[in-house]
């Protein structure tokens, strides 16, 4: 029974690991911290898994636990140094090679998002994952109206950062 549980969990996580990696990239600045956070999220997901009832999609359930871990439970290691080196290789955009301006804009946007605070990052992350405002509000524990208002403010803020 336990083996079955382990197997179904690891298989589901392996399939959906991109979600966790994306969160790790937003919330950490180097590979070591990325791996640390990935591991902590895995542990927390595994601890919560026996209570996962399957009435929602595994990926939907993952968003909450993973974001909760990144925002609240994870203790940033002291060794963590803020570095931009990791960031620059982190978002390689696969657009047309001659369209250099677009690449630059997207990289700028990525850097601007990384400068946001933890809560703003969570909002942007869920927006990028195409979640509805209702889901965003439910995940963060705020009202839908405020999620919408905050997201609009963040959009303006990001625009101002990349188009000074």
């Amino acid at each position, binding site marked *: 029974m336990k083996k079955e549980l*382990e197997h179904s*969990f*690891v*298989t589901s*996580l*392996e399939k959906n*690991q*991109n979600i966790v*990696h*994306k969160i790790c*990239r937003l919330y950490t600045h180097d590979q070591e911290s*990325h791996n640390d956070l*990935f*591991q*902590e999220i*895995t*542990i*927390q997901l*595994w*601890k*919560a898994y026996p*209570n*996962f009832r399957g009435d929602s999609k595994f990926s939907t*359930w993952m968003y*909450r*636990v993973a*974001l*909760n*871990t990144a925002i*609240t*439970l*994870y*203790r940033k290691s002291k060794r963590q140094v803020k570095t931009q080196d990791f960031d620059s290789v982190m*978002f*390689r*955009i*696969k*657009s047309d090679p001659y369209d250099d301006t677009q690449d630059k804009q*997207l990289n700028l*946007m*990525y850097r601007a998002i990384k400068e946001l*605070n*933890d*809560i703003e990052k*969570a909002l942007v992350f869920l*927006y*990028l*994952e195409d979640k509805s405002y209702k889901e965003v509000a*439910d*995940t*963060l*524990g*705020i*009202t839908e109206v*405020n999620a919408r208002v*905050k997201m609009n403010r963040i*959009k303006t803020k*990001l*625009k101002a950062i*990349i188009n000074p």
Partner: protein
Amino acid sequence: MDELELFKKEWQKKGEDLPKLSYEEIYKMLWKRSSSIVKWIFYISLIEFVFWISLDLVATLTGFRPQFDFPNSDIFLWSMYAIFYPVILYFIYSFYKNYNRINTTDNVKGLMNSIIKTRKTVKQYVWFNLIFFFLFSGILYLLLFKYDPTFFDLNGNESLNFYMVLILSIVLTLLFFSVLIWLFYRLIYGILLKRLHKNYRELEDLDL
């Protein structure tokens, strides 16, 4: 097209440049130890509970507790236990209840709330111990001054100034310990929960 919309399109396509962990690599992680702040809070709280209870137990078991000689001293001591231990048990129960409520599948604000609540229980527990300890000692001293001055090598004819200095020193000791504990909290929980409090405030502000 809006920059963020463009970014969103790329973000959703993104995947090939992300790390890809194998089944075995993920499987191994299941057995690693968590280093989450909840675990830290749990251990620190456990130490705090054990510390304050053991102070009393050690004093009793090693016979360190001096014998007092004033009318009904036994009743006084037993009534202290009758107040102290039920309250301690209540704190432990309430800590256990709050700790169990910490749930990673809760929403972000709810999770933060239950962590803050759990920590508050422990904080109140420590303050209760401290206040109880000083109130109890204060009453005990008063009774001893009145009924058994020899306990302090006093002859009962000390001046008012003497008593004033004594009371002042008791108050200063209380202040000293309070500041010490306050500093301990600032340090331990400051490190652990600084980020949580900041994020909690941010969420609170959103709903104002």
